[in-house]
């Protein structure tokens, strides 16, 4: 119940903020742009009808959505704990009978709800598709969305962790973007590392793990990876919150 109240407060704060609507608009504009260009490309290469929509369109579109999420999620997470520290409301919050884990859960779930709102907006493109070409072949989309959701959870937890390290939102946002870009580029350096190292990097990469989901295949190993990644960063965030016990700061 306490987590629910924290979640509601945090989500209310998102919904009351013009910045959130800005992020939502950017997300929807970019996702709409990518859907249009991917659809145009699909129509161009598929004039003989060789490609199904899953491999020809959805997979490509979801890959582009990953990129949009990477750009926009830092704007969602940067305020979560940094703002509380800046305002001093974190001290007020900890004076209530709340566990740190409850505070963290409320914030994480609010971030997730905001992400769901953004992803729900992107569903409009599929409604357009369904209106013209019917619902056949849309089933793999659920796997694709599950993949994006898991990626979103991982990115949110990482962003939340970085937001807990500073009270400056701009720094939190930029640092989060930097870390996300690092994860994006992680597998791009094949020439710089040996084959075995690249294999490890591929296993660690957040973004490359989604290809299976985008083709409609849910691999439990990939699900476990995202859950563990998310759990690790939430745990690290909790540990940062506990540093107030010995740091003597907000």
């Amino acid at each position, binding site marked *: *119940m*306490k987590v629910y*109240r*924290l979640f*509601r*407060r945090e989500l*209310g*704060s998102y919904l*009351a*903020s013009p910045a959130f609507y800005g992020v939502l608009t950017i997300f929807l504009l970019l996702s709409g742009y990518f859907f249009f260009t991917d659809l145009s490309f699909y129509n161009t290469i598929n004039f003989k009808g060789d490609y199904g929509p899953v491999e020809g369109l959805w997979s490509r579109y979801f890959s582009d959505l990953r990129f949009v999420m990477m750009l926009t999620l830092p704007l969602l997470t940067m305020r979560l704990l940094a703002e509380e520290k800046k*305002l*001093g*409301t974190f*001290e*007020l919050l*900890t*004076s*209530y*009978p*709340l*566990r740190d884990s409850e505070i963290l859960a409320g914030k994480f779930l609010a971030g997730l709800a905001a992400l769901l709102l953004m992803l729900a907006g992107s569903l409009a493109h599929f409604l357009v598709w369904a209106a013209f070409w019917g619902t056949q072949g849309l089933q793999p989309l659920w796997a694709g969305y599950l993949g994006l959701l898991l990626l979103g959870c991982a990115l949110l937890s990482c962003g939340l962790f970085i937001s807990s390290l500073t009270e400056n939102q701009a720094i939190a946002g930029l640092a989060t973007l930097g870390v996300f870009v690092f994860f994006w580029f992680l597998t791009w350096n094949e020439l710089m590392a040996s084959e075995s190292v690249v294999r490890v990097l591929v296993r660690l990469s957040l973004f490359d793990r989604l290809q299976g989901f985008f083709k409609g295949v849910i691999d439990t190993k990939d699900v476990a990876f995202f859950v563990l990644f998310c759990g690790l960063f939430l745990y690290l965030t909790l540990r940062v919150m506990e540093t*107030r*016990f*010995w*740091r*003597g700061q907000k």
Partner: protein
Amino acid sequence: MIQVDSVSKSFGSVHALRRVSFSVEQGEVIGLLGPNGAGKTTMMRILSCFMPPSSGSVRIAGLDAARHSLAIRARTGYFLERVSIYPDMRVASFLEFVAGVKGAPAGGPKKEAARVMELCGLGHMAKRIIGNLSKGYQQRVGLAQALVNQPDILLLDEPTAGIDPEQVVEIRALIKELAQRSTVVFSSHILSEVSQLCRRVIIINRGELLAVDTPQALGAALADGRGFRVVVEAPGGQDLAGPLGAMPGVRSLEDQGEEAGGRAFLIQAAREADLARSLCALAFERGWVLRRLEPLEHSLEDTFLKMLAREKRPS
């Protein structure tokens, strides 16, 4: 109600508190005094369970703060002047949120929020956004959130700082009323306010406890003598200063001029001198009229400054 035993708190090489011990009785209003950087905020943070002490123990309502932090926080109201409240929330929504996370009593968060708004004179501000309120009203919202669920212990850090005099009077009256049922630890820079509201004061400086007592007892203990103000009327323009200054035990005499048909003097005397008796005998002998004789009280400000000055003196 509050038992602080040999509490120390260090942040790396900085010792914010060193072996501080005191206790606060149930229903007592106690003032926490000290200059900037004395350790008041650290003490408040430890009492509010924001952070544990490095060593020593804190027991609140019989519970160990290190082990039962959640139970203690459920019974504590905490107000911090320097902390802003969520500026994007409306007054009623914020207080309902606080009532919800504090586990509102029967009637639910809405009813509890309405109760504290009424108590703090915020009823007409319920729908206003906190960030748009004046400093005074934001202070009231801060106080209102501390009062949610009728806490047994109130920790108030500078509750009247930065607000207009009329609201100061109202908030002081409210604190007095709250003291009827809660134990209050009250920190303020306004010493007259502390002496007005608190029965006892805790004075800390550079992390060390200097004293815990009533302002009167502290003043008396620090004074190296006793002061009196007298107004004497002498017939025929007799010399007053000479005989007054010659009384046994008198250390200094200050002529304050004509007043109420006589002449006023400030007399500092040794602690053991019985000035009242000597003065009455002198007046009787010389045919003076003793218009006024009043002992001088030490203000909390005097006491506080003397205590800090004594600390600074090389031993």
